[in-house]
Each structure stands twice: as C-alpha cells, then as structure tokens.
C-alpha cells in the first residue's frame, strides 16, 4: 500500500482547460472521495492517476515513485469502471485472472489470487459463468474482484455504483465500506452522488470546474462549508440560501422580508454589507418561538418518516425547504411561523465565500 500525491495537475482538451492546477494528497490507507457535478474534471483526474489520460502538466506520485510517465500497468493501481468493463467472452475466473496471465504468473499463483478475491466478495459460485449471465450487482463484484486480484497499492473507482438500482446501490455502499475496512488499501473514489461521498469517505474533495473547492472530512464539510457551492452540493435537500444585508443592530435583514439574528462572527460586519444567509432544511424549526418568521406552506413532500415542507415567506421570494419528522399535521396553504436558529446559520459574503464564525469555546 502507499499514499498518493498529485501536484499542480493541469489537463487541456484543445482550448478547454479541464483541470486547473489540482494538488491532492491521499494518505496511505485513506478512503478519499472526489465529488463534483458532471464536467468538473473528477473522472479526468482519476484517469490521469490511472495513466489513461496524459496530464498537460503536473506530477503524480504513488508512494515514493513518480508515476507521471509510467504506463497504467506499472503504476500499481487497479481501477473499477462505471460500466464494469468486464471481458464478455471470458468467464468470471478468466476475467479476474487476465492481468496475472498477462504478467505470466504461475497457475498456482493465479488460482490462489482468484480464489482469495472470490472468497472476499462471496462470488465463488459465479466463477465459471460469463458476464452476460450475471446481474448488475454480481458484475460489479467481479469488476472489484478483478481489481483485488492485482493487489494494487491504490484502488481507483470511477462512479462504480451509477449503473445500479437504488436498493443495490445502498447494499454495495455498505460492501465498499466493509471491503475497505478489510483490505485497508488506499482508495480514490469518484462520484457525483453526495450521499456516496458522505457515507463512504474518510475525506472528501469537492471539485468544480477543474478547481478544488474544499477538502475535509464529511462532517467538517457539512458543518463548515467553505462556500455556497460546497454548502449546497452536500446535503439533501440542499441548504437554503437567503439574500440579506447586515442591519444596524448586527442582525441580517432578509431581502424577502423578515430579520434574523446572526451567530457570533470572528470579525463584525459593517451595516449594509450584502450577505447570504444559509440554513440547512433540518435546522429550521416550525412553531412559535421568539424571532420566528411568518411563512405559508406551499408544498409538502411526504417521504414516509420524514417530510420536506416548502415554505414561502410572507413577503414573497423563493420558497425555502424545511425537513422534519412527518406527523401528518402540516397541510399545504397553512400559515405557520418558523425559526431560523442563529447558531445553525451559515453566513457567506457577496462572492459566496463563508464568513468565519467566532471560534467555539
């Protein structure tokens, strides 16, 4: 096993710059997830680590070795693709053994490696089947098995759960987590699904337009997003953002009406400063309280145990989402008051960067 280091990675496709100087360090044994919207460059970055895409500039090191100019097979990586990429004419056993056969490993060595990987993934009964006779989940397991057989220093996963149905995705997420605990191999995992990122990662890297927006643990990113993009990318429903200006008394006057008290900040803001106030849907409290604002319920999405309630401010503007346990009491068209608790608020400046809060004691 080994860590991964990417230094100032840049990649151009013609005139388009897809990676704009990305630097990442992944510690030995860490499960790192790169997350971002489509076209942000996350798959390009992963393919560059795999050696399938040549960087325009920058260096990549795995362990102590600079692998920037090495072919994929000599980098000590194994990759699991979104489409599984199994060889359709070979059996599961042959698929998993392919790399070792190419490397001219002995038959005993190949058999041992395949049997070990098959046991880890519980796919022993499938070894003599061809990919066409497997379900999506089984194919995914075989693809992972093929990666395990290579005994790589780093696992690379390119949106491996995207082709699976919702139920299977949840199961496979659990299996990925267990597998990582079992093998402890350094893992770089790319996804556009923030739930996968939050549930699997030791550390998340949020990428947008070829630039790293924030790096940190799932909890840290969720609780202290560096900007509005990260704040809204992580969490479902996404964080509500309300335009406001700082009032004379230090509170925030919302553009759509109402006033909210602000949390203690590291440095006070001058009155009239435009800010964006962010609050997560689960932090909004519906019910009478000091400082609560009047809203009308425009829509209730009932999800079983939870409900997402869309609230329209009395003075208009975009509705905000509030998530709470569904007790069936709220109805569309009902007028309610809701509190945006100051200690749950996130504050962003005019260009969307987080305004630091006073350090918690």
């Amino acid at each position, binding site marked *: 096993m080994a860590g991964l280091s990417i230094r100032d990675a840049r990649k151009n496709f013609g005139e388009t710059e897809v990676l704009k100087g990305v630097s990442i360090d992944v510690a030995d044994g860490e499960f790192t997830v790169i997350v971002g919207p489509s076209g942000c460059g996350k798959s390009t970055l992963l393919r560059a680590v795999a050696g399938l895409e040549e960087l325009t500039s920058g260096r990549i090191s795995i362990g102590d070795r600079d692998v920037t100019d090495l072919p994929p097979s000599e980098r000590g990586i194994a990759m699991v693709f979104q489409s599984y990429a199994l060889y*359709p004419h070979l059996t599961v056993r042959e698929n998993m053994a392919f790399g070792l056969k190419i490397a001219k490993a002995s038959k005993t060595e190949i058999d041992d490696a395949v049997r070990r990987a098959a046991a880890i993934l519980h796919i022993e009964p499938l070894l003599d089947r061809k990919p066409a006779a497997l379900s999506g989940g089984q194919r995914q397991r075989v693809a992972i098995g093929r990666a395990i057989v290579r005994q790589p220093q780093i696992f690379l996963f390119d949106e491996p759960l995207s082709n699976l149905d919702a139920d299977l995705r949840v199961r496979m997420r659990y299996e990925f987590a267990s597998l990582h605990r079992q093998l402890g191999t350094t893992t770089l995992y790319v996804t556009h699904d923030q739930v996968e990122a939050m549930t699997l990662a030791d550390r998340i890297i949020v990428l947008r337009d070829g630039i790293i927006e924030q790096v940190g643990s799932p909890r840290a990113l969720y609780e202290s997003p560096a900007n509005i993009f990260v704040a809204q990318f992580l969490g479902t429903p996404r964080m509500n953002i309300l335009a406001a200006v700082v009032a004379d008394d230090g509170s925030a006057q919302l553009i759509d009406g109402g006033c909210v008290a602000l949390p203690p900040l590291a440095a006070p803001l001058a009155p009239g400063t435009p800010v964006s106030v962010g609050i997560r849907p689960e932090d909004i409290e519906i019910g009478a309280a000091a400082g609560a604002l009047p809203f009308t319920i425009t829509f209730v999405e009932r999800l079983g145990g939870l409900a997402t309630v869309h609230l329209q401010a009395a003075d208009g503007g975009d509705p905000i989402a509030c998530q709470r346990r569904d007790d069936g009491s709220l109805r569309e068209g009902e007028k309610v008051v809701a509190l945006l608790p100051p200690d749950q608020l996130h504050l962003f400046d005019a260009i969307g960067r987080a305004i630091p809060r006073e350090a918690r004691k």
Partner: protein
Amino acid sequence: MSLRRWSVTLLAAFVALLTTAPLLWMVSVSFMAPGEAAQFPPPLLPADPTMANYHTLFGSFGIGRFLANSLLVSTLATILALIFTIPAGYAFAKLRFRGRDATFRLLVAALVVPGQIGMLPLFLELKAMGLVNSYAGALVPWLAGIFGIFLVRQYCLSIPDEMLEAARIDGASEGQILRRIVLPILTPIIVTLALFVFLGSWNDFMWPLIVLADQNLYTLPVALAAMSREHVQDNELMMAGAVVTTLPVLILFLALQRFYLSGLLTGSVKG
C-alpha cells in the same frame, strides 16, 4: 394456426421455391444425358440420371485443378484480407493517431469509385512489379478492401473504450488487446467479412481473367468461361460445371449462416 399465418407461410414457401428453382434445375440438368435438357418442354428431372458430365469435367476437362486453384486463391485472399483489414478497422475505430479521421474519410470516399476504373492502372503496376500471371497478382485487389475496413471499424466502435482501458491496466499490450480481447468479440463480423471476401474472390471473373494468362493458373469462373466457348451447346456439361462452381460456396454460406446473420444484424441489435 390462423388463416393469416397459413397464407404467409404458403407465400414464403412459394417465393422460396421460385428462388431455388433455377438452382435445383441446375443440379437436375447436371445429371441428364447430353441433349436431354434441350427438349421441349424441358424436363424437370433426368430420365436416366448419369454421372457422365462429372466424369468428363473431372476427367478430360480437368476441372479438379481449377477447383483447387480457386480454393487456394479464395482461401489466401480471405486470410490476407482478414490480416490486413481487422487491425486497420480496429485502429481507425479505437487508436488515436494523427490524420486518422481524414485518412478514413478519404478511404470511404474512394468506395464510390467503381473497381473497374482501377483495373488498368493496377494491371500496369503489377506488370511493372512482375506479378502478372501469378497468384500474387490475383490476390492483390483483395488484400485490404475498404468495405472490410469500414465494416470492422463500425463494429469496433461498439466496443466500450473502458474494456480496452481495463486490459491496458491489466498490462496487456496493444497486440494482446487486439488478439485476446477484440478478436473474440469481433467473431461475428470476422465470419461475415471472411464470407464476403471468400465469395467475392471465388466468384470473381474479371480480375483473374485479366491477370492470369497461364491456363494452368485459371480459377473456376475463368475456366468455366473458357469451357463454355468450346461446349456452348452442351448444356448438361455446363450445368455440371456450374454445380461444381456454386456448391462449395453454397455449403460454406449455409454452414456459417448463424454467424453471418448475427454479424449483419449488429448495428440494429447491439446496445
């Protein structure tokens, strides 16, 4: 079975009979005695089936040699065409190199030029190279057919890049990827292409006629044409010659039909 299905089945059987009737009559006439097929109305079946025509063909006419010539030329043409066409089609579909798309567009544009136009320049070229009146000369036009390259390229485009990349990560060289991953996947199209080339070179008349002057090197169609000049009245012998010419390829075609059809249907059924 409903009336509608009966009607469709009967119609299909009638069309099949209409299509195969000339072939069946060809086989029937080949077993007739000299002059029997010229009667009016022409008989459907031989009154007294005889192998005499085949004895003449393989005996005094020596068609066995021409059959062997055809078999040799067609087999070599097929093997050589596959050797050149498959890597070319794969490269045009999956490998990145400078001028790839421009070269391919040029090749496809050349498809509209009728083959006959190139015959004279090709003949002069081969003459300069000393390949006229040799099998090498007869094989040249089959080496790398544009249609074959096009066919292989289109099929290769349906192979996911990720599969080839997985093989690269597994340490396979480009040659190993082609041999161990791509070729097995290409089986239907390889059979289809092989059949096209084999049938084309087997039935080809014009080019062997131009390039092969030595009678001992004649392929079946050329030999049959030469025979027809001497035996123009001898329908039964000519029909036996036609049977010897068409039967091997017909059997080959029927034997490989399963692959051939799946190859042709590729574009419509592959996801």
